[in-house]
């Protein structure tokens, strides 16, 4: 990057907020996605929307790519600066600006840690439901740009269901506000929704108005184990069919249970073929009756054991085990690939079975866990990226998993985003017409392609990225 540009950036955000040392650049060259890395040219940490706008203007003027980055927990290489340029940090823009108890909204800057927001609103008896597994680390800005899901998705929906309004810096540097503290707002296109899940490819979110709901008074957790995956899947369908919508129904298969238990020691039976972790929240009477009904359904579908957590501590231990599933699988091998193929919930059993067959076919280990209630599965492959031959088989297995998911009426990604990792498969889901429509949107917002380039859309001649 030209020195004069670095100088101008420093004038905007201050010397200490533009990093160009080789150490800093290296430290922002990656996110949590294995196999992707690219060194940016500068790391810039603005303090407010106006500074962001000024930075964006300069970048637009000089065709400099901008990759917005929260805590870098992305799993689709969405926050790796694949074409260099500027990595935009929000470490100074991390304030909760307001919790409005009359309108039940929170106004926040993008750098707020998800867990921090959840705790702050809980203190006021409110709930911000989206709870991705990385919530102790991830930022709200990242959650919005990826439209993150979480464990409570089944009952409460995902991030997009909780974004009322956004402040956005557009690629030309102008500042736009969408939505507001409004339940109803049909003034034109729904730009709020367009930006939620746009993966930083359309602009920079610098503020958000989020919807809150009353904190449920009561919560109960239960765990059922199965000797047969099919029985677990049937249980999920039967619960929904009985008109019960639990807060979460999480699924862990046997290889997952085994490693999770080894690390967390919460007393999971490691020989079970499938485990369902079910949680319900709400008024105590409803929770108790729902849990009882669901326990009955579990038994009806041949659950080997059904345990209702006695207290909060026991419940927390069980959910902690599920939350750490991904990272725990990382103990098996040096590299861990985590996907999020998602199917209609009625198709969970066929999908899990297909994954198991694909694992055998390509001779790779696949641990599958995920949000069975909303069909969002996480087939996870412990491997070693240094073993090229095995890595190739892993790639083949994933390609087939994506095809199968789409065939079952599902999608290639439920909550991690397309990024660079799944860009080659986007066409599977969208078809040519869908891709063209999205490219049209991208083109009209960001004609110079400075916003997180190299993501979403796959170009055959895309620059080869470092695979280490």
């Amino acid at each position, binding site marked *: 990057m030209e020195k004069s540009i670095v100088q101008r950036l420093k004038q905007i955000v201050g010397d200490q907020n533009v990093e160009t040392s080789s150490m800093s650049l290296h*430290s922002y060259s990656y996110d949590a996605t294995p196999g992707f890395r690219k060194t940016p040219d500068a790391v810039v940490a603005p303090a407010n929307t106006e500074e962001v706008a000024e930075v964006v203007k300069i970048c637009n003027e000089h065709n400099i790519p901008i990759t917005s980055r929260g805590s870098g927990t992305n799993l689709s290489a969405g926050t790796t600066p694949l074409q260099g340029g500027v990595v935009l940090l929000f470490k100074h823009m*991390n304030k909760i600006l307001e919790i409005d108890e009359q309108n039940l909204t929170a106004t926040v800057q993008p750098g707020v840690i998800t867990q921090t927001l959840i705790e702050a609103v809980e203190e006021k008896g409110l709930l911000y439901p989206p709870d991705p597994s990385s919530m102790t680390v991830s930022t709200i800005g990242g959650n919005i740009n990826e439209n993150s899901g979480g464990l409570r998705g089944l009952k409460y929906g995902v991030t997009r269901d909780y974004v009322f309004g956004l402040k956005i810096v557009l690629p030309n540097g102008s500042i736009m506000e969408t939505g507001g503290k409004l339940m109803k707002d049909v003034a034109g296109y729904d730009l709020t929704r367009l930006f939620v899940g746009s993966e930083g490819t359309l602009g920079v979110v610098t503020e958000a108005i989020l919807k809150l709901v009353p904190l449920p008074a009561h919560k109960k957790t239960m765990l059922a184990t199965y000797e047969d995956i099919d029985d677990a899947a049937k249980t999920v369908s039967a619960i929904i069919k009985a008109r019960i919508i639990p807060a979460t129904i999480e699924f862990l298969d046997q290889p997952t249970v085994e490693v999770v238990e080894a690390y967390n020691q919460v007393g999971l039976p490691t020989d079970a073929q499938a485990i369902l972790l079910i949680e319900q929240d709400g008024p105590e009477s409803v929770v108790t009756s729902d849990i009882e009904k669901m326990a009955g359904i579990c038994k009806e579908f041949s659950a080997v054991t059904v345990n209702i957590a006695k207290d909060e501590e026991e419940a927390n231990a069980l959910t902690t085990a599920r939350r750490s599933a991904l990272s725990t699988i990382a103990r098996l091998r040096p590299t*861990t690939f985590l996907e999020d193929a998602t199917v209609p919930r009625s198709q969970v059993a066929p999908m899990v079975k297909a994954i198991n067959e694909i694992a055998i076919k390509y001779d790779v280990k696949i641990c599958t866990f995920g949000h069975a209630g909303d069909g969002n599965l996480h087939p996870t492959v412990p491997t070693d990226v240094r073993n090229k031959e095995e890595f190739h088989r892993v790639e083949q297995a994933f390609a087939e998993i994506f095809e199968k998911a789409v065939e079952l009426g599902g999608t290639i990604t439920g909550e991690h985003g397309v990024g660079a990792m799944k860009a080659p498969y986007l066409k599977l889901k969208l078809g040519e017409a869908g891709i063209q429509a999205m490219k049209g949107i991208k083109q009209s917002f960001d004609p110079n392609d400075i916003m997180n380039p190299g993501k979403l859309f796959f170009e055959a001649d895309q620059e080869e990225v470092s695979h280490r």
Partner: protein
Amino acid sequence: MNTAVKERIQQDFQDRMDRDELENCMRCGFCLPVCPTYIQSGYDETQSPRGRIALMKGIVDGEIEPDEDIEKTLNECLGCRACEPACPAGVNYGQLLEEARDIFNQNKKHSLPAKMVRKTVFDGLFPHQNRMENMTSLLHFYQHSGMQKMTRKIGFMKLFPESMATMERVLPDVPTRKEMRARQKYYQHENKPKATVAFFKGCLMDTMFMETNKATIELLQKVGCDIVVPDTQNCCGALHGHAGEKDKAKELAKKNIAAFEEVNADFIITNAGGCGAFLNDYDHLLKDDPEWADHAARFTEKIKDITTILVELDFHKMPLKLPEQVVTYQDSCHLRNVQKTFEEPRILLQSIDGPHYQEMNDAARCCGSAGIYNIVHSELSMKHLDYKMEQVKHTAATTIVTTNPGCLLQMKLGIEREGLSDKMRAVHIVELLIEAVDESKRG
């Protein structure tokens, strides 16, 4: 750093760093929220465990040249290892850090004064218990001859960094040489005999903190332990290991292993979280030494913190009493993160009749003592300490309990800096427990 040095460092990284361990970091970022330097730096990735591992790996893979910036961020890590229990992939960060620091250090030309200090401390002082005794008796002379009074009066300590000057005020009243020489090598159990233990006395604990060691032995006697104190033991080597002096650490480790093999005890007891953790790592330290690896493994199996054995032998069920006061506990990072001992001290403190135990917010976060960190990175260390004292004040505690001499001195320093020395004190847990035993005897 010139090109030749950089090349040598890079080569050493490639030869010596554990590549599998580096690869094990999946960059999930779960370490970020527990890392004191990441938080203190205002969320700078280069100051986080994930960032530091990426830099080490970058050097190994030839993606980045080793330079002063990287050396600095590695040195500014507290080494508290809070990232290890938080790491789902089980990456052994502490061992990676030590290896990386050792490589930088070996390829470094220290400035003459730094070299002299390092040589005096690492070669001349800590490995030699008699010299530690000499230094301590010098300190005793200083404290009791009127010199201390005079020094303070003429403001000599103002010439030193603020934390060191304050440190001078909070050093414990140390024993005389005669008192130090009067230590026994064998102590017999009281009550019913339950175990034979060997006591790792530690170099600092045995001199500057002799009272703490005395209390430890008394507690062990009370729970029915026969105690052997091998006199050929020496400094654990933690300070050397953490500061990039690995070879010296290995020498000390071998001497200790030999010393404790002579007395065949059930357990080896420590009362310093930092030493205990390093003793626990001897098996890793000597894993490539065919002659010593097995011995080291057997040695580490026997290491137990004083709080662990006290709980195991039901000390907390004995009558314990103290006047009403609010007590809080500051975790020793290495006791918690490496030895995984954090419940036992709390069980013990909550079993005392009278005081109210108040858990501190972020009790597990490093106080900034971190070996010699508070001397070599004084300014950064004080930032960590200021945060810690804020949390202490919220508890309204009048007694801060610790389980490691470094933490103890740092908390004393914090109390002094906050001007709270007339209403707050810091103690090692064994001292409080002995007080509680004595108080309950008085009825």
